[in-house]
């Protein structure tokens, strides 16, 4: 009997009626509380970066944790949305909310196309194929005129959100980013705990049986893929406005690897794991930045250690200790 990803996923017991168990509500409140205080004790730009990646990782986790599909090409959605948001804000002069929306919509469309082509494959094949598609997006970004090639799109104007909130104010920007993250987080949470999420889990556990019960498994998987791509796009578009930059880094396959690392370290298929993982990984990058390529070595070592001995991740182990799904 071979163990699969799902054996290391501490999936919450499914019950739609009690969709918001008390300990999770408590954990959520603690998270929101920490994030509200955080900018006054830590460097807000770092926090905003971590929040964007936390949203990205949550979106990614929707796929690996609840559908059991490992996409190795999620950078495509993050990066493409970043380019479109940056371009529409800078060249077309769209206000920030519409720019982010444009980026998110692009990622959704891209997700629909790539998802429709890849969703039939599974396991290693799926990882490989999504990686190849992301590489297509990467080369397109290298060559297309509007992406600015190696320079990327720089000095993206942040503007005023809804014409009111001045995003050039660091704290205003921070709380807008926090709000976007929380919306994304709650969408993922809602999706997981809805009937839709139950079908996803059924497909993950036993696809032939789900099909025999009358569920169109590929349909559901594709919907999860598009939702995951869309939220990745939301993260990418937000990130482009926060850093006023869209560059090739975000479409490169190393970024796809990084989001896998965040999710794995935090805990596959946990509600809070991806966000925790994102904060740890971005924190490491922040501290190890002077060390240059040592960062790559450390990331590689974390991968190896996680895969060999720590497959449940930080939150996964925590929730096993507490015997409560987090």
């Amino acid at each position, binding site marked *: 009997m*071979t*163990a*699969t*990803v799902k054996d290391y996923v501490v999936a919450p017991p499914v019950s739609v009626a009690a969709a918001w168990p008390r300990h999770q509500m408590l954990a959520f409140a603690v998270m929101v509380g920490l994030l509200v205080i955080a900018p006054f004790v830590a460097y807000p730009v770092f926090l905003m970066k971590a929040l964007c990646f936390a949203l990205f990782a949550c979106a990614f986790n929707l796929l690996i944790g609840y559908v059991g599909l*490992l996409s*190795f090409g999620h950078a495509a959605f993050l990066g493409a949305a970043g380019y479109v948001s940056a371009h529409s804000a800078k060249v077309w002069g769209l206000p920030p909310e519409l720019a982010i929306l444009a980026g998110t919509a692009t990622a959704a469309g891209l997700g629909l196309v790539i998802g429709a*082509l*890849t969703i*039939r*494959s599974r*396991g*290693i*094949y799926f*990882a*490989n*194929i999504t*990686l*190849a*598609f992301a*590489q*297509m997006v990467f*080369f*397109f970004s*290298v*060559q297309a005129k509007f992406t600015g090639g190696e320079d990327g799109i720089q000095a993206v104007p942040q503007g005023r959100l809804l014409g009111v909130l001045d995003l050039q104010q660091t704290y205003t920007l921070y709380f807008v980013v926090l709000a976007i993250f929380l919306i994304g987080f709650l969408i993922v949470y809602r999706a997981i705990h809805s009937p839709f999420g139950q079908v996803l889990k059924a497909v993950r556990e036993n696809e032939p049986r789900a099909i025999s019960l009358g569920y169109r498994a590929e349909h559901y998987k594709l919907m999860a893929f598009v939702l995951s791509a869309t939220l990745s796009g939301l993260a990418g578009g937000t990130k482009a406005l926060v850093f006023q930059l869209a560059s090739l880094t975000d479409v490169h*396959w190393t970024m796809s*690897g990084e989001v*896998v690392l965040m999710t*794995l370290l935090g805990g596959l298929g946990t509600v809070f794991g991806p966000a925790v993982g994102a904060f740890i990984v971005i924190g490491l990058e922040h501290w190890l930045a002077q060390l*240059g*390529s*040592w*960062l*790559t*070595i450390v*990331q*590689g*070592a*974390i*991968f*190896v250690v*996680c*895969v*060999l001995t720590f*497959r449940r991740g930080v939150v996964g182990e925590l929730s096993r200790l507490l015997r409560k799904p987090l």
Partner: protein
Amino acid sequence: MPAGEEISTVFGVPVQALFGQVLIGLINGAFYAMLSLGLSVIFGLLNIINFAHGALYMTGAFAAYFLLQWAGLGYWWSLLLAGYWWSLLLAPIAVGLLGVVLEKTMLKRLYHLDHLYGLLLTFGIALIIQGGFRNEFGSSGLPYAIPSQLTGGYNLGFMFLPTYRAWVVVFSIVVCVGTWVVIERTRLGAYLRAATENPTLVRAFGINVPRMITLTYGFGVALAGLAGVLAAPIYQVNPLMGADLIIVVFAVVVIGGMGSIMGSIVTGFTLGIVEGFTKVFYPEASNTVIFVIMALVLLVRPAGLFGRTA
């Protein structure tokens, strides 16, 4: 070509440029074929996609570079030559041994898990190896001279063929066909194929399957190391030389059909040439053409051109 004579063209492209690109395509194809062959052999028995393959290819090139530095300390030109030939033999062995160690200490622990964990582990190993080399040698390339016996070239009339490139193509074809013969036509290959189908049964016949798995992984990555040695004089020896190449090779493996030996050889060379042609006729698409082909193949044959089941 005498002055005044009209340059012959094909579809408006000078013949020389066309053949030049086809040759480059063939060279790239040789590397695609050797790398995807190693991936296929490993995938067939271990069921993992070896993400460290590109890093080990780079390690092979660096091993060749070290051997050159040690063997030819600058006072004996003939030793420089020896450095290349020795590294052609020793570098793959070194990389193969590294592979054996990786399999024995880490990969072995993952066989009872989802195959995705193998992918993630080898991805981590690739990051460590690449980061380590980049720490020592930076991101710029180190030059590696073509061994003196293989310098120069032949004028074929329609194009100039550098000896070293001809050598790479011929040698890699010999290696690929040799591997195919060993796997498909020998007793050892029969054991290997049997273990791919049903390891438990093969083990019951008294064959040491775990050792076979170790050696297969070692052999697969030794092929990557060998490709690295061959590549060293053509591309520069660079810590990142395998990082992007491996993604293309993944696409080649998907097109050929994962685990198919002949599939990876034929697809590797063919796609190299297709890429070469694309560079001539539509250069903008030369980086993406393999991925586009992959998408099309998946639509028509999800198991790949030579694969049996998805």
